């Protein structure tokens, strides 16, 4: 039996224990009368420091600290999907039922419903040999997701007993394994895993497929790969959260983990409402059935905010191990970095850039490296795509969190205040953003969408780049005196900006568009450009070219063309031909 420790000092979310203890680094402990959850973060001869994940008001020196001898862990098993948790996996719905509208401390509620029975198919029998990560049982977790129970990554051996198919609770034993050292391990549908340790997986596989989000500026201009990592930096009001919500709703991943890290309470409520009401276009089922929400709002304890990112990624890894493509949206990683800074300050560590601890870059890289396309231990292929919002102070991208995030992500969607002020949404600036995945994904676009997809995309990008250059001149002398061909470039660029890049999240049709429609829209725009240029070459004045109304018609095609009939755009192309034929 371990020795009992007592509180010595309290300062904000940090409590200390005096003298030598048998507490281990990163061990989870229960602090005080209310059993607040804490974690050991520093040990010296004289003092052991514990960070507490709940409000410390009311703690007294001398109160008990109970050690658990295992690190901060989450429970993984059926029943996670559709749930909403706080940063340390406490189920918020259950807590609301038990203790009312305000959060209370130290309520010990199991993370997943222990009484629900799952219709389980057991896939192993006595005498089989099982290896780490192997799938031993399956049950329908929601109507669209089949939950696969896995052998824990640290366990293998011979099955000496396996349960029959039937209804089981998460705690029921479904198999007994005789491990290499002769001990018997009982396996159930659920298992525990420490949040700060990545779950082991097999080899990393080369990236080959984009994560389709239905957002034109993302899928076409700056695509993210399944298994990739992206950052969305932007000052307040630039639409980070709306973009993250759009991705969570429409990304074609199997599982979405949405982490609201230090953000607004009302936004989490909105996400919860929307995900329950909206249905997945491919299955017709509520989005919540493939989603796990983690809500650690800005007024909830800061230490749990720091943990919430790890809790989220561990849940995502668990579903990856079952062979699912998962995507994790973290809004916002800056709040997590600030939580690190706050705790580091309480520990009186030497600050680096802007008060952030010197280990900020290594923590960020550890986090983003948990993304990837893997062969799981079970042999199935699964991926984790990470999309982290960054909230730079004063919208200044040179601050440490943005800069370091940029180093570890290969896709950068820079949100721009001036675009947001002009209500150009999504306010992703096409000059500052980039995606390094385009080269790896071009084969996929060629084989699955259209042969010349990437070529069209590059043409669109070059028109936009040309516009940026011209705007420098326009700012100085106005657009009136530009030559006609440059006026045409500006007009086409306007069509691209308004008709293609802008996308209305509130509009029924426009909120999500399939990639093939992106392609057809680009075709129409480029065709219009070509025809207008031809007309120009035949000495038709540019004012007549503009006055055909085709430019504005093409701008509105995002609303007019139904998503399931993108080929209707061919009629536009014919109309463009006819109109300019007449002109000439």
């Amino acid at each position, binding site marked *: 039996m371990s020795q009992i420790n007592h509180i*010595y*000092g309290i*300062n904000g979310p940090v409590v*200390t224990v*005096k003298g030598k203890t048998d507490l281990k680094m990163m061990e989870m402990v229960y602090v005080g009368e209310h059993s607040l959850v804490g974690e050991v973060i520093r040990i010296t001869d004289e003092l052991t420091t514990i960070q507490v994940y709940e*409000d*410390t*008001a*009311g*703690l*007294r*020196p001398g109160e008990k600290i109970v050690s658990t001898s295992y690190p901060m862990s989450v429970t993984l098993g059926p029943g996670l999907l559709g749930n*909403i948790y706080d940063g340390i996996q406490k189920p*918020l719905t259950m807590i*609301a039922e038990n203790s*009312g*509208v*305000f*959060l*209370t401390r130290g309520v010990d509620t199991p993370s997943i419903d222990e009484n629900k029975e799952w219709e389980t198919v057991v896939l192993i029998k006595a005498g089989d040999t099982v290896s780490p990560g192997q799938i031993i049982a399956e049950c329908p977790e929601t109507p669209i997701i089949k939950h696969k129970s896995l052998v824990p990554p640290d366990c293998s051996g011979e099955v000496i007993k396996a349960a029959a198919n039937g209804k089981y609770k998460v705690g029921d034993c479904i198999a007994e394994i005789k491990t290499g050292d002769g001990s018997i391990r009982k396996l159930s549908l659920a298992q525990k895993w420490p949040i700060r340790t990545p779950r082991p997986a097999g080899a990393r596989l080369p990236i080959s497929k984009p994560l389709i989000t239905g957002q034109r500026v993302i899928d076409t201009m700056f695509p993210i790969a399944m298994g990739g990592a992206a950052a969305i930096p932007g*000052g*307040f*009001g630039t639409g980070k959260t709306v973009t993250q919500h759009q991705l969570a709703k429409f990304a074609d991943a199997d599982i979405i983990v949405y982490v609201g890290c230090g953000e*607004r*309470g*009302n936004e*989490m*409520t*909105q996400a919860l*409402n929307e995900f329950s009401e909206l249905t997945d276009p491919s299955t017709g089922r509520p989005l919540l059935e493939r989603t796990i929400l983690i*809500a650690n*709002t*800005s*007024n909830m304890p*800061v230490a749990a905010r720091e943990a919430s990112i790890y809790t989220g990624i561990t849940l995502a890894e668990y579903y990856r191990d079952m062979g699912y493509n998962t995507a994790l949206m973290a809004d916002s990683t800056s*709040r997590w970095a*600030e*939580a690190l800074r*706050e705790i580091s*300050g309480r520990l009186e560590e030497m600050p680096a850039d*802007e*008060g952030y601890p010197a280990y900020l870059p290594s923590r960020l890289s550890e986090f983003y490296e948990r993304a990837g396309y893997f062969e799981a231990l079970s042999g199935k292929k699964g991926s984790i795509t990470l999309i982290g919002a960054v909230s730079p*102070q*004063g919208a200044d991208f040179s601050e440490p969190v943005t800069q370091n995030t940029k180093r570890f992500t290969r896709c950068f969607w820079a949100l721009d205040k001036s675009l947001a*002020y*002009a*209500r150009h949404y999504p306010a992703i600036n096409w000059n500052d953003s980039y995606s390094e995945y385009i080269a790896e994904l071009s084969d996929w676009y060629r084989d699955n969408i259209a042969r010349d997809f990437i070529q069209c995309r590059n043409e669109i990008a070059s028109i936009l780049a040309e516009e940026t250059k011209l705007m420098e001149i*326009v*700012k*100085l*002398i*106005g*657009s*009136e005196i530009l030559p006609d061909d440059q006026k045409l470039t500006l007009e086409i660029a306007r069509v691209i900006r*308004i008709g293609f890049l802008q996308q209305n999240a*509130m509009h029924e049709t426009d909120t999500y568009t399939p990639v093939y429609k992106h392609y057809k829209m680009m075709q129409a725009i480029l065709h219009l450009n070509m025809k207008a240029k031809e007309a120009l070459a035949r000495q038709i004045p540019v004012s007549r070219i503009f006055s055909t*109304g085709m430019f*504005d018609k093409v*701008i*509105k095609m995002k609303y007019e063309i139904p998503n399931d009939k993108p080929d209707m755009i061919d009629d536009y192309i014919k109309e463009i031909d006819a109109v300019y034929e007449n002109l000439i």
Partner: protein
Amino acid sequence: MVTEHIGLSEISGSLVILDNVEDAFYEEMAELHLDGGAVRSGRVVMIEGKRAVVQVFEGTKDMSVSNTSTVLKGKPMEISLSPEIIGRVFDGLGRPKDGLGEVFPVCKRNINGSAINPVSRVYPKNYIRTGISSIDALATLIRGQKLPIFSGSGMKHNELAVQIVKQADVSDGEDFAIVFAAMGVKNDVADYFRRSFEQAGVMNRVTMFLNLSNDPIIERIITPKCALTAAEYLAFECNMNILVILTDMTSYCEALREFSSSKGEIPGRKGYPGYLYSDLASLYERAGIVKGSKGSVTQIPILTMPNDDITHPIPDLTGFITEGQIVLDRSLENTGIYPPVSILMSLSRLMKDGIGKGFTRDDHKALSDQLFASYALVQDARSLASVIGEDELSDNDKLLLQFGREFETRFLKQGESENRTIEETLDLGWELLSMLPRESLDRVSDDILDKHYKAVVD
């Protein structure tokens, strides 16, 4: 059991340190008795074994290590609440200041409150009409929202706040009250608010918490917590719609900075403590609507941006927490526009679900999108005009400039007691947009244009 600790072992700034304290707990209230009868209050902010650090709200002036004895109260900081607090005036610590005696408490509440469980929140949808066109049309205020006013010193934020309070329309028969918290504001500003509330006939619905600029700075850190605790009580237990005005958040943050540096904490940006975000969030997040209660807490925090700099940590962190912002612009104010709302920088995040059919009018969304877009073009045309002169502009740009001027003088500008209905505001918006060529209104669908666009015939 109450023990009295004679003497102090250290005094530093507003903090005193007690030795040999048994059984103190974190955030416990303390009462400090000075020789001569003065009593001050404080709170335990740090414990290390038998040492306790107590923060004294009224300051440590005249205290010495020997002339003070301390009683730990055995409870956290609480205020007494009852429905009777409406119409009363309190100091920054929630003690009556109007000479009407103590509040008979129906209950006592810990001023730190608890976080609302996100699952128990109700997403705010009911809009509040303020009668101010720029806000109603372009940054609609929603019941349960936190919408700050970013201003600068000397600008008309107080007038705007008063106008909102006077005109705010929750006329659906539900109870409405105002909780007003002043932090470090000047006496005449507090008076201005009081007078304006009286003139509007709402004084009997106002609860005031006043920490004026000559009151102790540490008390200032407690003031908004008291006010919000009162607001939560009235809203969620008495089912009232509460509008909380917090002014001036800049003074609050400065008090927090002073307190943090006196504790010897490592400073973050511009000397503000690293936890400024968490601390502000613990205030702002106390707005909203919860399941099972008819009431709501709506917050309008007012802050003056130091040097009109919106990237300063205070407005910056506030903007990251609140659901939008109303930004006042000095150059507009200087041209005589009241309220000087800089609409491109202003935003209400919750408006998208609280406007349109069933709330305001079905064309509201399209109108506001188009006004934003067209007004953004006005800015481009203006910056061009400042380089090449207005005469050299294209006809289209000239039209935009004209639109911009009309928009500012007719739409933004309105009297301090001019109360516009939502129809008036929206119709005025369409009238102004009709100055521009119909083709240029690319944010509006054709059927809405057919209904509302009225071309101006020269």
